[in-house]
């Protein structure tokens, strides 16, 4: 009997701390977050994390896909991803939380969208407007630069982001009735902010110029001809008078953008490799 008692005591000694330990783990965050709630004003300006940016970007992409169907062409999708990955790895932000992904939207509209976190869309209309692989790379490098510069995320209104952060305090959770209340509404509002910037209003002129500068740098490092971006801008500007909506609203091609790109290009010889790239582009895209 004594042996049984000893064994029992040992079992309890092993089990009870485990139970208490886990219970404590479940309670501790409450205390930590309660403190966060108290200091919320101080921490309101914290940056979005990479994982938050990813989940926000997924939702923005899911919303864009309600307006534009996905182009279901495996060969073209693979090719666009190959070009996209080639430039992304040479960008100022080669890695994101779950990596870059590229897809084609099945519309004649000429446009491209960079969702936070790294999902990038190019429309079939813009893809067909490109004459070479280097021009496609220029479009994708420009969109990668928007992701790298966090231009989508930065379009979330400051007031809303401050509210997101304060909603993360325990006090706010109690006030609004838990995460299902306010945080979801703030997530929805943030998606709206980014969506409106990407699809309706476009980025600021400063953001466009910075994305062009990033694209020229990326194209050069990747081995593409950065002159392709200048050519594309010229082509868009020529269409300018007749073009409306789409890229002409969200990424307006302007003379100052073109001047900046031309000034940044040091040398742009057309190589035999560029001709090879153009050939594979034509074989795959211009079927």
């Amino acid at each position, binding site marked *: 009997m*004594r042996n049984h008692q000893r064994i029992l005591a040992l079992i309890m000694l092993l089990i009870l701390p485990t139970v208490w330990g886990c219970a404590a783990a*479940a309670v501790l965050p409450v205390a930590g977050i309660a403190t966060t709630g108290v200091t919320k004003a101080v921490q309101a300006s914290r940056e979005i994390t990479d994982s938050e940016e990813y989940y926000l970007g997924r939702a923005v992409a899911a919303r864009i896909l309600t307006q534009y169907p996905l182009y279901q062409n495996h060969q073209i999708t693979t090719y666009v991803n190959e070009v996209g990955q080639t430039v992304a790895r040479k960008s100022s932000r080669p890695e994101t939380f779950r990596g870059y992904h590229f897809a084609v939207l099945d519309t004649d509209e000429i446009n491209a969208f960079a969702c936070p976190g790294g999902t990038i869309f190019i429309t079939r209309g813009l893809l067909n407007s490109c004459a070479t692989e280097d021009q496609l790379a220029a479009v994708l490098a420009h969109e990668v630069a928007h992701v790298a510069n966090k231009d989508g995320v930065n379009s979330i209104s400051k007031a809303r982001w401050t509210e997101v952060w304060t909603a993360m305090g325990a006090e706010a*959770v109690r006030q609004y009735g838990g995460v299902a209340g306010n945080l979801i509404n703030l997530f929805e509002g943030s998606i709206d902010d980014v969506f409106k910037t990407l699809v309706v209003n476009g980025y600021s002129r400063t953001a466009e110029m910075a994305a062009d500068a990033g694209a020229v740098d990326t194209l050069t490092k990747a081995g593409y001809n950065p002159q392709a971006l200048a050519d594309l801008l010229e082509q868009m500007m020529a269409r300018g008078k007749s073009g409306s909506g789409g890229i002409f609203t969200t990424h307006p091609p302007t003379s100052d953008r073109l001047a900046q790109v031309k000034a940044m290009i040091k040398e742009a010889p057309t190589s035999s490799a560029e001709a090879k790239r153009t050939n594979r582009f034509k074989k795959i895209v211009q079927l």
Partner: protein
Amino acid sequence: MKRLLLPKPVVWIALLGLAFLMVSSGAAWGEVLKVSQPDQCLYPDPDFAGQPLLPVPVGAELNVLSQAGDWFKVEYQDKVGWIHRQAFPAPPAGSKFSLGRLIGVAPVKETKSDEVALAGKGFTPEVESAYRQKHPEMKFAEVDRIEAVRIPPAQLQAFIAAGGLQP
């Protein structure tokens, strides 16, 4: 050497404690969970980055084999794979205090602290899940398909080399 002596009341308390644990343990393993969210998939690993094995519709019943963090290893249609807990937004009944979870890798959470901890993390898979529930028209399944497209490193290197680009 000192002998460990236990008075009888302690033995009874210990036995009652053990009995309580056994009775209140939820069957985390062998439990059947019902999918309540649209656009869910079974993955080969506990990672959204993998190629989904197959879609899992709303109402599908999955046999839980084990749990690791936010992922459940389940059996469905003769396939074994992983599904994220976003497929079942409400904590499964009876699993709040599972002996299996106590000794396994899964954290023990209660609903109230779940809500608070969730809010403390900002935009998370759980927030996405609640948003999807509110907006079933959003095309998350297509986003999953886009994310599933992967260019293997060797293929990318061959593409770069063929185009005379910088490795």
